[in-house]
């Protein structure tokens, strides 16, 4: 499997999602608006749940809705992320593996991303993520050098800006949408705020 590129937008929203529910396990889907190829470019993400990750109905519902939205917006589901409630353990749970398997049936470059809670603090120098890829019928750790996070410093500063402006509260996940269906799980408003903060040189990455 080739390189994986993680955009600032996707990273920021995942980080915000995990921060919004520090006591819960959270998960979401990774999307790409680029055509399928050797490299995977994760351009966006959709935060899904913060409760009962291992129950089927809402997960199924969310997957079908996101899938439908993706086909309307020329995006594909290319992966899955999860942050465990227990920060000392960032290994994929059976639930994470099951969903990643499901996505793999449709996309053979599927990315399984676990957020490492222990590394989520402002001055941390490394991205708090652990990536897995499908290799020889199992999920193996991906070579760190094949993971690209362009403009890492800028991404960190954007995330900090979102927290200081209070905009991190704008994030809506699918669970929150079901609690109040006036909330937008595609996060158009937050996306716009983040894109504003991303400098022109960075483009859409």
């Amino acid at each position: 499997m080739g390189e994986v590129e993680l955009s600032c937008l996707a990273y920021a929203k995942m980080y915000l999602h995990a921060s919004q529910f520090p006591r819960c396990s959270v998960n979401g889907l990774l999307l790409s608006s680029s055509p399928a190829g050797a490299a995977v470019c994760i351009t966006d993400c959709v935060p899904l749940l913060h409760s009962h990750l291992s129950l089927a109905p809402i997960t199924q519902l969310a997957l079908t809705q996101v899938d439908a939205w993706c086909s309307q917006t020329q995006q594909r589901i290319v992966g899955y992320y999860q942050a465990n409630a227990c920060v000392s353990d960032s290994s994929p749970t059976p639930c994470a593996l099951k969903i990643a398997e499901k996505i793999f049936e449709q996309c053979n470059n599927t990315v399984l991303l676990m957020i490492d809670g222990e590394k989520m603090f402002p001055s941390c120098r490394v991205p708090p993520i652990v990536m897995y890829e499908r290799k020889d019928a199992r999920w193996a750790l991906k070579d760190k050098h094949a993971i690209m996070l362009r403009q890492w410093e800028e991404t960190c500063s954007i995330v900090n800006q979102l927290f200081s402006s209070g905009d991190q509260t704008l994030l809506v996940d699918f669970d929150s949408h079901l609690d109040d269906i006036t909330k937008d799980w595609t996060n158009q408003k937050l996306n716009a705020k983040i894109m504003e903060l991303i400098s022109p040189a960075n483009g859409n990455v």
Partner: protein
Amino acid sequence: MSSISELYDVCWEEMRDKLRKWREENYRNSEQIVDVGEELINEHASKLGDDVWIIYEQVMIAALDCSRDDLAWSCLQELKRQFPDSHRVKRLAGMRLEALERYEDANKLYDSILQDDPTNTAARKRKISILQAQGKSSEAIRELNEYLEQFVGDQEAWHELSELYINEHDYAKAAFCLEELMMTNPHNHLYCEQYAEVKYTQGGLENLELARKYFAQALKLNNRNMRALFGLYMSASHIAASPKVSAKVKKDNVKYAAWATSQISRAYQVRGCLPTSVGLHTIQVTFWPRLMSSNNCSN
């Protein structure tokens, strides 16, 4: 930096009342509690009368949640001074040790409470929380089961146990816990809906029919429960699509699904915001049929 009272133009009485509301309704909005509570304590402690002690407790717990050990420590000192031999304050001291991840010290404290008073439920529950924090789920489950044998009416404990079982994918036992909760709280739509979700996840025709019934029950208790509405749609659709059901059952379930569809459409039209035209025709129930369970309708 302006104070809460300046920012929101509230007087100390309103701040005190807000704290009481959050306390009584068990909110865990810790950052807000710290902001409001810290100011109340610092500026208006003398006016609070006997309320001040319960506010110290509330603010201390919220401070632990926000990693404000400085604030937690000062609240704890006030409480220790006022109630030197209290088990309740000792438990708070234990919670502070937990927040500092000094689990052995915390356990020693809780054990000393239990030696004095073996019926102290708070200390027992904290010990179980420590097991959860350490990722020792099977032990936490075992201890919680033992606890519930003695304190069979503890709703919070039953719910916590159901959550632990769900995380361990032990759906049958999670269902059992939720059945206990539904028996003692027949009007709680959330328990019905969670029970239905567990049944749906277990899969198989019988469980799907149960799921549908309990989603419907949740809706009867609260017709705005969107999870129950979607759940009803999905379970009815699965049943209708099963080759094992009679024509009548199929017809009935198609009707239930259609009803759910219309209710969902209406809800979104009236107050929802769908990202694009993600209408109900896109909820292709058969798209991810075997996601979680190893069974499906045709077993």
